[in-house]
């Protein structure tokens, strides 16, 4: 690791310039500008470059090897990574678990886990949802039973993103059924190589296996794998969301799909075809407006404001825009819109169905858009509780 830089102390322009130069030098061109997540092995070179430069954990405090960025600086970091088209990583550990561990973990947990997720040795997945606990997460039933200094886990998780790539899981398990459902939930760290743990990939519409079912059959972990205290897991999971929520509303994928639409329309001579110009104009408005909305929340964070539940509006708009652009791409392909795989768009390959498939999950995961509407109705609009 190089000498620690005072990233927040740099002028913003200089900070951006450093990031751009770094991306240009270290991020392989063949990994850039893809809307999909590659396997961990493919992106390992970039993950390790970030790790070695001390840039894999922009939001962590410096003492744990993070960049210690202020929220505003963190957003600049994200902007530059997105502008440079750097690939999605299997960095759920760094992004989601790390801050929770730093806040709630024991010193021993921090010592053991943080360096390994920083280096990429540990790849983490998140075990929250269950077959009967989707939108209603708090009703989860995957059970944890304490026996001496062991916690024995039985049950099932589902929709676990990248479980086949991960070797560790942070999970919520039910350790007490006697009280209200938000209580009695424990946040636990699981080594996925333990006996009794089975992963079954689930094919999604595009034929990929982004998410999995994970089965626990008497999986035994030490009680020292519990974060915070037993039955206190709901608190940890909620706090973990915090800053990350703005991610779910990033217009990044809408922006990429709009670029594909424009490219295809140009290739097919549709830019001046009747009706298409206005449709492209509206799609461009919807996307640029999403960026303005994103910037509004980013500014809010940047100026030290708190990111309230209003950010759900961003998630709803960005995911809906991504979806409608994905259908516009199919429409712009006209007779070829129903054909799978890469089409030719003026010499460049273009898979017009992929964004349709890819744009479904964002409106469902991280809270369905319907759940986010409930939140906005109650918490922002002050409407009465519905029956």
């Amino acid at each position, binding site marked *: 690791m190089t000498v620690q830089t005072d990233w927040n102390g740099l002028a913003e322009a200089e900070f951006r310039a450093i990031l751009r130069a770094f991306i240009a030098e270290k991020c392989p061109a063949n990994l850039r500008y893809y809307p999909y997540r590659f396997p961990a092995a493919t992106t390992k070179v970039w993950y390790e470059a970030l790790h070695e430069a001390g840039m894999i954990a922009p939001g962590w405090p410096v003492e744990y090897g993070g960049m210690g960025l202020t929220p505003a600086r963190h957003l600049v970091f994200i902007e530059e990574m997105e502008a440079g088209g750097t690939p999605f990583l299997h960095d759920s550990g760094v992004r989601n678990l790390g801050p929770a561990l730093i806040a709630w973990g024991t010193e021993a947990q921090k010592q053991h886990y943080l360096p390994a997720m920083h280096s990429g040795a540990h790849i983490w997945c998140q075990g929250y949802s269950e077959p009967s606990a989707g939108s209603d997460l708090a009703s989860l039933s995957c059970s944890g039973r304490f026996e001496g200094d062991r916690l024995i886990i039985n049950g099932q998780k589902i929709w676990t993103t990248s479980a086949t790539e991960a070797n560790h899981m942070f999970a919520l398990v039910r350790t007490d059924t006697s009280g209200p459902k938000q209580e009695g939930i424990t946040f636990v760290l699981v080594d996925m190589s333990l006996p009794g743990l089975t992963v079954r990939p689930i094919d999604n519409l595009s034929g990929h296996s982004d998410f999995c079912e994970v089965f626990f059959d008497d999986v035994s972990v030490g009680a020292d794998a519990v974060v915070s205290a037993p039955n206190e897991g709901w608190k940890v999971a909620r706090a973990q969301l915090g800053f990350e929520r703005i991610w779910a509303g990033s217009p990044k994928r809408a922006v990429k799909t709009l670029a594909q639409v424009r490219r295809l329309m140009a290739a097919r001579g549709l830019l001046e075809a009747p009706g298409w110009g206005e449709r492209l104009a509206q799609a461009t408005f919807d996307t640029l407006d999403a960026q303005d909305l994103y910037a509004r929340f980013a500014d809010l964070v940047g100026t030290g404001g708190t990111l309230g539940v209003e950010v759900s509006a961003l998630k709803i708009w960005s995911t809906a825009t991504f979806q409608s652009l994905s259908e516009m791409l199919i*429409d712009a392909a006209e*007779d070829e819109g*129903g054909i799978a*795989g890469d089409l030719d768009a003026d010499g460049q390959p273009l898979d017009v169905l992929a964004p349709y498939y890819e744009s*479904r*999950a964002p409106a469902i995961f991280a809270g369905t858009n319907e759940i986010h509407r409930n939140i906005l109705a109650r918490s922002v609009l002050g409407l009465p509780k519905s029956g």
Partner: protein
Amino acid sequence: MNRIDDDTAVMLREAVDKHARRNMDPGLVRSRRSTTPGYAPSHLQALAEQGWLAAFVPEAADGMELGVDAAAILTEGLAPSLLVAPLDSFFLATRTLVGAGAGSDLFAGFAEGETLPVLAFQERPGDVFAPQTAQTVCDASGRITGGKAFVVGHAGAGRFIVTAKRGAALILAMVEAGAQGVETETQWRADGTPIGQVRFDNAPSVIVADDTATVTQAIGLAVDEANLVVAAELMAHIDAMMAMTLEHLRTRVQFGKPIGAFQALQHRAVDLYVRQLLSRSVLDPAVGQVAEGMEPFERSRLVSRVRCRLNDTARLVARESIQLFGAMGITEECDLSLHVKRVLALTTWLGTSGQHRAQFAQSLASSNQNFSHEEIMP
């Protein structure tokens, strides 16, 4: 063409529903993806045995010479089990031949499922509305050179029915799929069924019709009818997706109650239902009218209206069903995916909504004379 009466329609509907239910096998549908010819050979045989191929062959060739009304019933019945192919290709080609006045000898082997006729008339995106040909020519000795695209059913084709230019005339010719100089290339549609390009290099042919008017008229009618058959298939997928989604809403429990008890989801389901009912109300009489016979300009306008409504409803229901299903809706193993992918494949075949709408818009602009209070269709 012969219309079917109401009693026959009821019987046919019952027979095809029974057949489709008995042969429903989602696992088989999935396993056949990205394989040719896109259906089980035994399925073509079954269609023949049921008499559903002979149904569209001319009476002179010992068929029943039925038309779009019968085809719509068969398609709607087969679609829930994903068993339409290759009946759609068969119908499009056979109707073209019948419309072009092809001799009965040209239908040999059709009714028995021995020879699958497949129409190859498109050459580039968007030309479905103009049955012309720019790239394919027929020489004096009847040899065809050129290429066709968006050919559905190509992989199982016994004979290609091909449009070509001979001098200034648009002709219709029949080329054996196995003849010298015929090559095909396969792409896969969203549902894993094949769609092909066909290239002809001095391929021998039999001329079916050699004057532009006959060919234009025959293809125009057959494509309009096939569009209604696609619409009928879309109707079946709309109904299937709606049934699955409503069942999910009734049974999936979250927050202590079926999610269908949440009023916001109820109203969204109702808005889908309104479109479903609208689609049905548009489709059925259109099939009847076209089966009765219509003047080509009005017929094409009606067909475009039907296709737009069915395309748009199918895409809306697909999109909303996925969302209402939640995470399960984006899995391959949920049978909803079979219908969603079929909808993605179908809504771009024989004209997208955008193309049909543009066609209709042109007709509105060109036929705009004077308006009275009463009038909405010029």
